[in-house]
């Protein structure tokens, strides 16, 4: 019985840790499938985290907080869109700028809200079950956003491979010139994809500040945006692999939790290195086969588009 409890606890903790990676990762997957490399995921997640937290505390409604967070992420993504799509700025530099700005601006916006406690979303939903068995209590930690994150890979897989809009998205990411010549509005499609990526990042950030921790502190995303970016590369732009990679990383992120369960006394600083080191290892494993990456990457990824007409 005890082992089952531990297994459930690890599963729940893994799913919870994987949720922000799934949300942000699939948002970025859509943006990259359209041919846009937005390195600002970390910044957009931070904006989502602070705005979502403030919105929830101020209005008392997590729904409003989440919507505001998605809006904030999408708004920041639109800044990126204007710079890279309309003004054709370098996507790498602009993505970095987005992250630098997001780190600073989220800290500025959230400065008065540090240390304010908030009840997690999960306990908001199921207050009456608080006296049940340990396993049920564990499962109650799975809030609606986690369930959404479980659904997202299936929805996006279906969208990309089974719908006409998904086909057009893939086409634009493959060659904007051809898509343009055939009469598709490359910029409109890319703006939509980038905005979607921003909203998903905002949601992922808000999940951290509203459900995972739940509280707001400066720079609390702690590199998860970058890990999500690495996972998209790891997945070779395929939804199934992205979902799998996120789970794997959720598992690594809670290493400290597992170490305690196993009775290991390692420095928390060394354990905290694990997700970052794991990201490097995974990246190395996938990048070794350059041909495979080249084959699967959206061919127009990162390249600016300027219609000459």
């Amino acid at each position, binding site marked *: 019985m005890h082992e089952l409890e531990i297994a459930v606890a690890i599963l729940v903790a893994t799913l919870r840790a994987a949720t922000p990676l799934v949300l942000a990762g699939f948002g970025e997957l859509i943006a990259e499938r359209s041919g846009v490399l937005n390195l600002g995921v970390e910044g957009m997640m931070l904006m989502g985290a602070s705005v979502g937290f403030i919105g929830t505390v101020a209005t008392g409604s997590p729904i409003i907080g989440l919507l505001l967070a998605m809006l904030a992420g999408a708004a920041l993504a639109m800044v990126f869109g204007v710079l890279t799509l309309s003004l054709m700025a370098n996507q790498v530099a602009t993505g970095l700028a987005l992250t630098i700005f997001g780190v600073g601006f989220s800290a500025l916006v959230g400065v008065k809200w540090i240390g304010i406690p908030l009840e997690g979303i999960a306990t908001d939903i199921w207050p009456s079950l608080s006296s049940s068995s340990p396993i049920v209590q564990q499962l109650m930690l799975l809030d609606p956003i986690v369930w959404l994150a479980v659904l997202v890979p299936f929805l996006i897989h279906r969208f990309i491979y089974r719908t*006409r809009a998904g*086909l*057009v998205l*893939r*086409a634009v990411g*493959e*060659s904007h010139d*051809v*898509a*343009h*010549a*055939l*009469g*598709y509005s490359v910029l409109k499609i890319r703006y939509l994809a980038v905005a979607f990526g921003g909203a998903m990042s905002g949601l992922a950030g808000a999940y951290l500040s509203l459900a995972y921790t739940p509280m707001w502190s400066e720079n609390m995303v702690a590199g998860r945006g970058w890990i999500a970016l690495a996972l998209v590369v790891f997945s070779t732009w395929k939804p199934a692999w992205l979902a799998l990679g996120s789970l794997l990383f959720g598992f690594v992120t809670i290493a400290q939790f597992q170490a305690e369960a196993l009775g290991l006394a390692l420095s928390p600083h060394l354990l905290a290195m694990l997700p970052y080191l794991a990201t490097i290892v995974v990246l190395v494993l996938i990048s070794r086969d350059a*041909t495979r990456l*080249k*084959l699967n990457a959206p*061919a127009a990824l990162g390249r600016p588009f300027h219609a*000459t*007409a």
Partner: protein
Amino acid sequence: MNASALPPRLRLTGIVKRYAATLANDGVSLSIAPGEIHALLGENGAGKSTLVKIIYGVARPDAGTIEWEGKEINIPDPNAARRLGVGMVFQHFSLFESLTVAENIALGLGATESIADLTTRIAAVARRYGLAVEPGRHVHHLSVGERQRVEIVRCLLQSPRLLIMDEPTSVLTPQEAEGLFDVLRRLAAEGCSVLYISHKLEEIKALCEHATVLRAGRVVGECDPRIASEQQMAEMMIGGALPVAHRSAPLHEGKPCLQVSKLTLASDEPFGTTLRDISLQLRDGQILGIAGVAGNGQKELLAALAGERRAPQADSVLVCGTPAGHLGPTARRRLGLSFIPEERLGRGAIAEFPLSENGLLTAYPHGFVRAGLIRYGAVNKYAAGIIKRFAVKASGIDARGSSLSGGNMQKFIVGREIGTNPRVLLAAHPTWGVDIGAAIAIRQALMDLAAAGSGVLVVSEDLAELFEISDFIAVLSGGRLSAPKPARETTVEEVGLLMGGRMAAEGAAHAL
């Protein structure tokens, strides 16, 4: 059918289109009758592609009117063009590599029918016109000829009334081109008009009933190509007498300067061609032409000869007698090898760099660097010398690569590669996309280099060019190289069959 009684399928009047400082189209007018095959002739930069973009709704004219079957209309985007019944086969195919044939066609149709229904329709049209396509295959697996068939099928599915073909045969073997002409004639007989863009005059004579000639954005003449001579049409295109290149007598029995023996090399590109058992010998004073359809190993062969790809054995490539298979580009240059690559900006030259540094790019092993520092005085002198010798039109040695026209950039690159006095020169598509004047100057430079005793290897898709300048011709097909034959002892037909993948032993005899 009496075509003159009907209003023209398409009539353009006074079309003007300006890009930045250049007038791409300056009052262009032309008219195409129903069922007519109409040629649009002109050099690179004459304004052909701009005009086609306007007809297909990709670009919008700054002035002028478009009439479709007697009614004045406006074509805001390609979807509108397709609704009218305009179909287009692009020169650089508008296909998505990672998608299937059926998905590509679905994207081009803008319709919402299921892929399954579409597949049936594709099969029907393909059967009717004798165009073999497989809807389920991914485009990146297809040869260029197959890709073109996909584009044509895509157009035919929309029952076009005007089909635009942009340089359709530049990637086909002569036999494949004949097959294409049959399809076009059949379409025309069914009443579809064809606007045929090409610079290959012999094809236009064989296929078209009417020709409009563009130069510098203006219509400079019209003719019936069945009557006008190739010479007349060429002179209309360039606006003057056609210059001719002269070949001095080749040196015979020179020493071998480039030898390749049994070279087999897998491509490092996802869909590249593996080189199989390539052997060749180039002697001083010779020009060896290598024909073939793009994608049959040309890029791979040149990379292996220039040193960008190393061979597994050092002695599978000998440069001036020295084993060089294991050497990189710089070491091979030191042995006397030079290379004019296919792509100009981005490979042969750098758009953002001044011409002086573009000269340094490959000339640096020849005494332009001392103690790790660049001798800019010598570099500037070298670039100025090239500009002068090859009459490169540029504002000076500080002009950026991007500021030169394609032809002038190519003249500069040719000058840079010849300027180091190579024993062996590799040239990939040396006159592709350059104007006739520059093309002749470049061919002359290659022939002069051979006359002075160097070996020249030219890879080209332009058979007329290869027959004009080469002493020997070999064909690259599927990564295999046929045995070189003296240019005078072979024919375009024979080379064409080899290009189509039939090796001499099995094919030539019964096919001819």
